[in-house]
């Protein structure tokens, strides 16, 4: 009935590793922290390091597959496009250092170091942001997170907005799945090529989005009717105290921050500077 929801949810329930047990806030902080750092540094190697660490944690927490799939779909095409556009002579002002030539359709085109750096770094940066956000999402029990937010006295409206954001994607998956089942049972051809599949998919994107949005609204009605913003003190069955593991994780983040601050001060942050530094 709802493969989408279960796909994303089950991963959160079934595995019970240290990362699932970490406090949602700590993992959320990790997402913000990693995203900001790779943004400041702009360095492909550092960004790659962050990506590898995040993916390694994801693998340990048994949520590697959905994250990898998302990256594959969103990021890989970007890298190819980005590298091509940025590294080849399309007249970008930052392109100065030629590091080699490639042959395209008989033309000998120069490849620029700066463009290559940008072309690789940008998608990597976004990969870090996406994978750390998904890591947070997929390993965090939403009910627990909501409990934590209530405890932190975040206003009901804001909590609701956070929930709606997080539920939209699974609801979308869910709707897509439901509609495809409905269509198959009414004669949609299933033994067709990729192109036809994409076309079929595009044909339902709009109704899909509308109905997922409707569902988000229905959820709001349900939550309201079930006392979500009732003016009473809530009870929570979950402890929202930080554990030793949470503190350790925070400690590691702090240490890395200090180290990177030192690097920042001594070396600077231009990707080009880094590339040259490594090249040399």
């Amino acid at each position, binding site marked *: 009935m709802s493969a989408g929801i279960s796909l994303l949810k*089950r991963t959160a329930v079934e595995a019970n590793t240290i990362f699932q047990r970490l406090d949602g806030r700590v993992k959320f902080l990790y997402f913000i922290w990693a995203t900001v750092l790779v943004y400041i540094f702009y360095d492909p190697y550092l960004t790659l390091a962050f990506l590898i660490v995040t993916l390694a944690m994801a693998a340990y927490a048994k949520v590697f597959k959905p994250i990898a799939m998302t990256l594959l779909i969103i990021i890989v095409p970007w890298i190819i496009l980005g590298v091509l556009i940025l590294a080849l002579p399309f007249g970008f002002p930052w392109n100065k250092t030629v590091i080699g030539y490639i042959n395209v359709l008989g033309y000998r085109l120069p490849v620029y170091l700066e463009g290559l750096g940008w072309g690789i770094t940008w998608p990597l940066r976004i990969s870090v942001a996406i994978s750390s956000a998904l890591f947070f999402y997929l390993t965090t029990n939403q009910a627990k997170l909501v409990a934590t937010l209530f405890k932190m006295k975040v206003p009901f409206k804001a909590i609701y907005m956070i929930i709606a954001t997080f539920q939209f994607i699974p609801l979308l998956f869910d709707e897509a799945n439901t509609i495809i089942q409905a269509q198959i049972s009414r004669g949609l051809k299933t033994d067709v090529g990729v192109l036809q599949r994409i076309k079929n998919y595009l044909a339902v994107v709009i109704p899909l989005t509308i109905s997922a949005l409707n569902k988000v609204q229905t959820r709001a009605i349900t939550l309201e009717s079930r006392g979500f913003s*009732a003016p009473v003190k809530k009870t929570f*069955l979950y402890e929202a105290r930080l554990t030793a593991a949470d503190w350790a994780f925070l400690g590691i983040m702090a240490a890395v921050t200090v180290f990177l601050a030192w690097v920042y001060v001594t070396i600077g942050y231009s990707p080009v500077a880094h590339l040259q530094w490594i090249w040399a």
Partner: protein
Amino acid sequence: MSEPIIKVERLAYSYPRKELVLYDINFEVNKGEVLGIIGPNGAGKSTLCKALNGLVPHFYGGKYGGRVVVAGMEVLEHTVAELSTKVGIVFQDPEEQMSGLALTVWEEVAFGLMMLGFPKEEIVRRVDEAIKQVGLEGFEKRSPFELSGGQQQRLAIATVLAVKPDVLVLDEPTAQLDPIGKFEVFSVIKRLAAEGSTIVVVEHEIEELATFADNILLLDQGRVKAYGPARDVLTQVEKLKSLGVDPPSVTELTYLLNKELGANLEVPITLDEAIKIYAEALGVS
């Protein structure tokens, strides 16, 4: 002892930019009573339910006239959030009942209790009890979205049973339940009423309703067509039939017998009454 917990006076309502769907509705439900609402599709039953917990008009907007007072709160002057502390509602589509914030059946039932601030031990006790009442033992750890239609409807009912609100509004709660399940759910509802909850239930399942409802309100095209003690409404066979509502089988059977044979049997509304009446009439006791 009769103090009205629900008071509806001259209620009229239309969804935004639409015709009126409720006209001049008047009724009262006393503490501990069960009111059954019956009527054909599109009569406005679900809309009326939503008027009792404030979704109409607070969420849907539209034109609103008259007054609805529930558990001492005038609906127009209180938010849905405030009303939610006194009124629990079970929606017609069980999927709509799900919070989306619960990974398991157990958590789904606990959700409402947590939001309303019940103490921890109480929550655990009530969740287990409600799950048992609807016959979902053994499914506690299942995802709310991996249930059969009837199981999901049972879960939807449990989420409100657990809260035991002052006022319970149930919109066709047993439509997808198997016959014994229907009976069990109605028994639980009846018990809650005996413990002091006030209950409004929309049902097409008139044979069950006949054994549980104190009063019945017959709604058609937004208007009240009959309202009063269950027996008075359900024995108006002609009127019910003309609106496309079937009375209980035994009621219809007896009505037809009286008409076609000129017999003068007392008209039963429940099976037990029928057995007694027929046994006596046919010379056995």
